[in-house]
């Protein structure tokens, strides 16, 4: 049966009945990285240095060296990223079960709300309303919050800072607990620079999505794009981090399979 499923999948991929959607932002120096107060340690932005380009440094080949942080660009957060998940088993990029890295995705369209209010917090009530239309979130599925934030191609608008900090949408604290405890999601995905809202430091607890998700061994995806090309239910996503020893996260090439 499974063999048949895979064969059918391969055939559907070939024929285009199943399409592959790229959920990944391009890794480029101009893509912004998360900002912390300057006295803290900082995440490296993506940087690239040319090694050779068919020249005296390497006559027949072109290649680069690049550097970035584990949390640069479209990336995966492992449970060990947060203090609440530090003692869990299999909590790092090299030990998370790979079975978890391919799974169903539910996509909630919050683009209208986020356009009206950059500090929009996705609530439990809003998710329950979504379930009335699309059915209950199945266990071990991803919840992806579509905000169209990725369409803010100007880094200033994408980061959206003012003197009180960053203003980007994210989940409310009670929603995160609900998703973990009552819907058993595998993780939460966001288009903004973090899974938590820009003002998430002022929620209780601070950064609830990091605190509760990682504390329960669940994962985070951020800087996703093309969520507007996913159906509310029915997509399968691939989000494997690099196998960094004891890594807290990793840039990924996030892909989704959707019906054609």
């Amino acid at each position, binding site marked *: 049966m499974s063999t048949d499923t895979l064969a059918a999948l391969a055939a559907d991929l070939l024929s285009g009945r199943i399409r592959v959607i790229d959920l990944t932002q391009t890794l480029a120096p101009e893509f912004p990285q998360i*900002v912390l107060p300057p006295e803290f340690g900082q995440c490296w932005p993506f940087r690239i240095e040319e090694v050779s380009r068919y020249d005296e440094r390497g006559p027949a080949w072109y290649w680069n060296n690049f550097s970035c942080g584990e949390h640069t660009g479209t990336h995966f957060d492992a449970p060990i990223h947060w203090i609440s998940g530090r003692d869990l088993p299999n909590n790092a990029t090299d030990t998370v079960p790979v079975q978890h890295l391919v799974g169903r995705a539910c996509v909630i369209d919050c683009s209208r709300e986020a356009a009206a209010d950059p500090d929009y917090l996705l609530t439990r009530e809003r998710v329950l309303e979504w379930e009335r239309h699309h059915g209950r979130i199945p266990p071990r599925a991803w919840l992806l919050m579509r905000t169209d934030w990725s369409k803010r191609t100007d*880094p200033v608008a994408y980061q959206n*800072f003012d003197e009180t900090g960053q203003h980007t949408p994210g989940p409310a604290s009670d929603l995160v607990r609900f998703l973990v405890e009552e819907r058993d999601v595998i993780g939460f995905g966001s288009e903004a620079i973090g899974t938590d809202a820009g003002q998430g430091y002022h929620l209780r607890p601070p950064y609830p999505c990091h605190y509760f998700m990682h504390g329960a061994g669940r994962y985070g995806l951020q800087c996703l794009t093309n969520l507007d090309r996913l159906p509310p239910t029915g997509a399968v996503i691939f989000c494997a981090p690099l196998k960094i020893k004891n890594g807290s996260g990793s840039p990924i090439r996030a892909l989704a399979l959707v019906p054609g």
Partner: protein
Amino acid sequence: MIPPLPRPKRKNPVLRTRAPLLPPGPRSRAALGLTAAAALGRFELQECAACGAVQYPPREACHRCLGVELPWRRQSGEGELIAETTIHHSHDTFFRERLPWRLGMVRLDAGPTVVAHLHGGCGTAPARVLVGARLDKAGQGVLVAFPPEEVPNMADDRQLREMTCDPKYRKVLITDGKTAVGQALVRAVCAAGAELVWVGHAEPWKKLPGLEQIDAMPGVSLVPLDLTDSRAVREIAGEIGGKVDILINNAEVHRTQGIASRSGIEVARAEMDVNYFGLLRLAQEFAPAMRARAADGQSSATAWVNLLSVFALSSFPGQGTYSASKAAALSLSQTLRAEMRPAGIRVIDVFPGPLDDEWNQTLPPPKVSPEALARAIVAALRDGVEDVYPGEVAAEWFARWRENPKALERELASQS
């Protein structure tokens, strides 16, 4: 009468950009003493420790008593112009393009008679003059006789401008406009008559005070510039590198860590990435274009300024990794100076003591204000010096370092 410097016309694009030439550069080791002082903006001559004779030209032994202990001492420069000439013909390629050229002989009140370039404000001999030392295009110390009193348009003198890097009517790039120092620099070079000022700014999503006011100033343009991003530096150099006459690299990462005070190397690496590699990236991308434009008419490429720190000379252990990054930058700046010399472009290193900035919040005064630092940099450009130690802390540490670097090392350690 010195005619005021005219606003330069736009370049005629059908004419070849001329190649830079230098005046004769070779000097004996003794004569380099004059250069070393001129690099600091000082006029010094040898004074015999045995008989007190002041001598010129510099030599290995005293012309009067053959004493060999000849320390360099600052001179007032006061003297009498006793003879002058105007040269209308020369086989030297540099002077051939700059004729006529006025020279004179000045009998210094201190004793010797010197040959000096004559500022246009000097009267005909005999006349009282004030001799000062300047660096010429070859980077060597030469003497210039000035009128004893300020005359109108003093800095606009045609011969003097061959030895200075006045920002007037020049196009300036300031690499970081987000700091108080950067913003003070923009105001200072605008006040000095700069034609155009490009102001770099990194990470545009981080709002820092003052940048919008700078952007609103006439003649000022913000340009995205992050010295950690090689491609971005290349792009902006491609865009404006062929127009920059004066590059002021004030971008820096300044943190206050030693070795033991913070684990890991992230802070040190961030300092090195901007303070050292950032300078390297800038130099690789901007220096070739500037060298090619070093003889591009009145407003040619003329100077490159690096904001270093007096900690580059000797580590301040409380800011040890910052000191190390500035020491690395100083070393690289010497290389840049060597590579810019054939084009006659001056590389100016600025070594302030602690700045009155956010990261020096807990250091007691005296601290250098951004405005004072900016004034010192503009003055260095106008005087054409190579090394500047603005502020009393820097001046004192520099003097102590020259006298006994080991003693300064101990003193700085005990201050940390």
